[in-house]
């Protein structure tokens, strides 16, 4: 269970406050969507969950399975099961995708106290999962994300997610820049990971991704706070009315 309690966060560099008291609970086995207008703090929330040090938490707490993760670095959070699928995955020239995947999987396994995968074991797992997600062998041979299309990058994120077997998945605007076919593939990959042991937070501006990944709850984030919570029908409502209501509220 993810519990976010009165979370306040600001940009470390200039002190701009972005998150102004977020309260949220995502039980294991549920998928929650966070929707909101641009600049509402959606991506900041994703980054703060993953432990990016460009943001400073000034008040509140984030508990994962009852334990505060605020003091943990991003790598230790990953070991605890937190996974952020990036809106804009980084291109890392010179780091071969396979090298990266193996370093990542084994680092997490080591921290979780699970035996590291040998080369043949690793190759077997990665090939099987890559095939499921339509990630071509040729992509695995290239430097990480370099020269990948938007859709390829997102598929690579989902591949990483399935390799690392997280218990908390945060998908940040996973649909941005994708056409319908790509959204379907990515959503299918994410849906496969739905399980009773896993919590998922799907961050999106538009409702369309939620046609493919059906949420149990929808939260509207604006001005750094959760403004409204409802079932999946709230997303459809927002699709009709837009975010005007929440923009006005602040004015």
């Amino acid at each position, binding site marked *: 269970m993810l519990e976010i309690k009165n979370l306040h966060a600001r940009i470390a560099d200039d002190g701009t406050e972005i998150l102004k008291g977020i309260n949220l609970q995502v039980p294991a086995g549920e998928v929650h969507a966070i929707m909101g207008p641009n600049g509402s703090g959606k991506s900041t929330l994703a980054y703060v969950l*993953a*432990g*990016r*040090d*460009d943001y400073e938490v000034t008040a509140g707490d984030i508990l994962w399975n009852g334990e505060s993760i605020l003091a943990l*670095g*991003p*790598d230790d*959070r*990953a*070991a605890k099961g937190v*996974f*952020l699928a*990036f809106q804009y*995955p*980084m291109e*890392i*020239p*010179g*780091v*071969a*995708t*396979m*090298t*990266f995947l*193996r*370093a*990542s*999987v*084994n*680092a*997490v396994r080591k*921290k979780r106290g699970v035996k590291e995968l040998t080369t043949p074991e690793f190759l077997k797992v990665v090939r099987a999962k890559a095939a499921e997600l339509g990630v071509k062998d040729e992509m695995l041979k290239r*430097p990480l994300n370099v020269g990948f299309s938007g859709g390829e990058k997102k598929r690579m994120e989902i591949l*990483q997610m399935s390799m*690392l077997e997280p218990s908390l998945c945060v998908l940040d605007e996973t649909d941005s820049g994708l056409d319908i076919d790509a959204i379907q593939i990515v959503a299918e990959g994410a849906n496969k990971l739905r399980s009773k042991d896993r919590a998922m937070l799907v961050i999106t501006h538009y409702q369309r991704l939620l046609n493919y990944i059906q949420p149990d709850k929808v939260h509207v984030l604006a001005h750094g706070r959760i403004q409204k919570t409802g079932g999946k029908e709230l997303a459809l409502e927002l699709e009709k009315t837009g975010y005007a209501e929440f923009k006005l509220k602040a004015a």
Partner: protein
Amino acid sequence: MTITTMKTKAEEQLAEQFARTAPLLPGGAWVPAARRAAFQAFAANGLPHRRIEAWKYTDLRAGLKEAFSPAQCSTRTFDAAALATVLGPDLAQLPCIRVVIVNGRWQAKMIPAGQEPGATYHMGSLAAVLGQPDYDWMELCFGVSTISDADTLGGGAVVDPVMALNSAFASDGVVLSIVEGARLGLPIHIVSIVDADAPMATATRCLIKVGAGAKAEIIESHVRLGESPAQATAVTQISLEAGAEAHHVQHLAANGSSAHLGRWDVELAERAIYRGFQFTAGGGLVRNETHVSFTGPDAKFDFSGAFLGRDRDHIDTTLVVDHSTTGCESRELFKGVLDGHARGIFQGKVIVQPVAQKTDGKQMAQVLMLSEDAEFDSKPELEIYADDVACGHGSTAAEIDGDMMFYLRSRGIPEDQARALLIESFVGEAIDKIQSEAIRTSVMNIALAWLRDLPAQAAPLKAAKAATPNKARE
């Protein structure tokens, strides 16, 4: 009128050493005169200093406080096991034709069965060649039968101080000629080892000719045993005849109190292809200066390198590429990693003469700065006198990218490992330019060992365990 300039301590020592040791250096009838001419050419200007543009960032007058005495012979024999300690196991096990030079003197050659010189190549010691009165070797290699002017030795008219000093003091080296049209089955590895209990200086010279249409791989290692500081001048002159192809790699690893003044002169005839790579790990004061000239059209020059510095290492890469004929291509990619108070220098001068139309030249120097005290000086110089050319250059100096670090760490990779991965991949991109897989892997492992601050011989174990960029290239 005589102008007397103040000589530095090092300059005085060099003059004394030349007077004392020149009679002992190898050389037939004409050689002593050529050496004297070279030393006089050096002495006229002395050590270069910062007011000489080409030496702006590498002031030898300030950097060389004293000139060490010429090296004594080593009594140690470098067999395979001893080589592994100085080269690391990868390079030591590289299947190759190998020459071992110890303290500036040819010690041994190791030639696998079936690879003996004769049909495809000729190889000998420079000292022996210089000692022969009839110049057979020089004629065989270079098609000249009289070498009366110091130019062939490289000193003379050229007042390059490194070339001049090397001509004056050169004690030995390799003379190598690849026969026209020959394809060597193995690379030729020239290993120059300094084995010193006390500070000492060496001067070595390699003369290489790759005959028309021939293809060869040449590696030069400059390594050392022991902690005593050393000074070296090392000159390689390589000429490629029409349609020849050469892959030429330098592997330089030394400790922080040494000085290495290297110079490569590359000459390309028509359609020749030259791929050079210079790898420098540490070494104190290092100058790698390369001059390239094109004597025929449509030749290709592709030159890259990686330099790694920490503490007070000073690593200078200076290139002068002179396009004096049409349709030639030059490519340079250099990458450096600088930590501590290390200083990196890249000077890349590309000259396109008025006749050199259709020249295509590109140059890039990139440095990763790991410390706020590191310094990188980059000076690209384009002198273009022709109007139908494509030339470009770029240079970057950056810290480790915070976004990339976060991305890797968010995937569970610990901070130090993520950092190492990014540094290694940065260097790996340059090392990837080495075409031979065996040599590329060896150099990468030496780089990894250096980056992890381990002795070279410990590298392969570590490299095999950790997930490193070269692993994925398997």
